[in-house]
């Protein structure tokens, strides 16, 4: 698939701190690209860089096959929709009137409003003032605004932030339907790996401004290899013995794990422990969670 977003060595620094550091993004056409990372990793800044809201210190950005610069920025962005951080709205106006303003600026006929309101299921609330909307409704209105003009590319920054579980599910289903129903490519950022697992076809993981993983979700899951939980009568001693025997093991949350479930390694580990007088009580297979994958990739424990 031809990439819709490509960045090369994209860098943004504030003072001496690189918030985005040599980022090489490649978002395939028709994909839902989950842009993942803990809070403060540089996701929002990257999206703002893509939209030209923040100027990069170095690097280049290609959107929809064209290299973006100050002259063509608005022309390229006219084929994109975006929802950045919190929803943007005029509280004193109704949802319909808010969308009218976007139609005027995007030069889109107002008949489009009914179409996008139907997509986000907000026809019933269109005449209510937006300041009276719940956060979920504001978020859906923001999404409706992004969909005006049927853009080929959607950039959504944490669109489920602050929503209740039902709202999250609704937005998730909506995003999932966009590539097939409207041929859109969606880049959606989140700090929740589990959310991406249910939505994305491709994943990019950013940490401290650097892209540490980028591929399809299937490839990410390949990192989710098996590990073995080892229960002994003395885990601390067992760990020392395994390390001495150069068998890859670790202790997490007070539990002892063998990093590989390879047969020969398991046989070797059990034999070594038995020979050293450590009693092996239990051996059980465990799948790595996405949090574990992140830990594996970054070497850091984060709350995802």
């Amino acid at each position, binding site marked *: 698939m031809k990439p819709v977003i490509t960045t090369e060595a994209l860098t943004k620094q504030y003072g001496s701190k690189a918030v985005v550091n040599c980022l090489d993004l490649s978002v395939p056409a028709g994909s839902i690209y989950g842009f993942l990372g803990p809070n403060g990793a540089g996701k929002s800044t990257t999206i*703002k860089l893509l*939209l*030209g*809201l*923040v*100027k990069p210190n170095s690097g280049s950005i290609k959107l929809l096959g064209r290299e973006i610069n100050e002259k063509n920025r*608005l022309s390229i*962005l*006219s084929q*994109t929709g*975006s929802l*950045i*951080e*919190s*929803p*943007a*709205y*005029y*509280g*004193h*106006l109704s949802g319909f*009137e808010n969308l*009218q*303003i*976007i139609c*005027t*600026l*995007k*030069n889109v006929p107002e008949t489009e409003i009914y179409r996008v309101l139907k997509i986000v299921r907000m026809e019933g609330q269109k005449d209510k003032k937006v300041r009276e909307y719940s956060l979920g409704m504001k978020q859906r209105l923001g999404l409706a*605004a992004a969909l005006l003009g049927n853009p080929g590319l959607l950039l959504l920054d944490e669109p489920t932030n602050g929503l209740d579980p039902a709202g999250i599910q609704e937005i998730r289903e909506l995003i999932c339907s966009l590539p097939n129903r409207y041929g859109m490519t969606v880049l959606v950022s989140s700090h929740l790996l589990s959310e991406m697992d249910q939505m994305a076809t491709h994943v990019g993981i950013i940490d401290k401004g650097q892209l540490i993983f980028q591929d399809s979700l299937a490839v990410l899951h390949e990192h989710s290899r098996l590990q073995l939980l080892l229960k002994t009568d003395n885990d601390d001693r067992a760990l020392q013995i395994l390390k001495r025997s150069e068998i890859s093991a670790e202790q997490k949350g007070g539990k002892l794990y063998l990093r590989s479930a390879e047969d020969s390694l398991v046989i070797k580990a059990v034999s070594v422990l038995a020979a050293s007088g450590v009693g092996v009580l239990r051996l059980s297979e465990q799948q790595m969670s996405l949090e574990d994958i992140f830990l594996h990739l970054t070497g850091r424990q984060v709350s995802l």
Partner: protein
Amino acid sequence: MKSLFIRQLYAERQKGRKKHLSLLPLCFLLFQVLWALWQLTHAAPEELETGYLLLFHHLPLMNTILLPMLAAVIASRLCDMEIKGDTLKLLYTMQKPAQLFHCKFLMGLKYLFYFTMGQGLLILGAGKICRFTDPLKWTMLAEHMAVTFTVSAVLLAIQQTLSLLSASQLLPLAAGLVGCFLGLFSLFFPTPIARLFIWGYYAAFPAASTDWERDSKIVRYFEVPFPMTGFLLFLGTVFIIYLLCKTLTVRKEV
């Protein structure tokens, strides 16, 4: 098909719905009408003989007190909706920041224009109702209105910049209030120092001045020539200040 700039201006109009912004110049004007009524009903008959000159002398002082606040409130009302609704990051994907600045400024100018025209009508109406005997010089009226509008416009640009750069509208409104006082106090400063305070420029190009006779205690109003060169220099400064304000706003990342 409307051009991009016209569409952006139209969008500003759409945003202003239900804000009732036209009431702002009307309220300030109403206050001036009441003040003019009080002033003129208490004026001596010989003062009414130079009634237009009296107004051309007093109204700039009144404008110095009121209009910095009007500019601050208009700018705040126009920009607050963007700050409160966090809309700049969305708008800047559809329009250039500089164009948003120009459109907002033009919208604000519209209300200042209403006020200036209203003040012109106030002068004409006062002349008819209070039967001023001196003839109205249309050039004086035009000069007075040009000064009122231009000084208000530059204050609007400053206030708009503050309003777009501030997370809360308290600071820009406080700046407007401080501007009122600075403008008023600057009238008592030596001229070179007074010229440093843009808020006091309403009275910097007076169409009329006064002469007070100590013995008879009579105030006499007389026409003074309009300082056209000074005004043209001021227009140049206004343009530079506007560009600076625009640059400051555009440079801010959202």
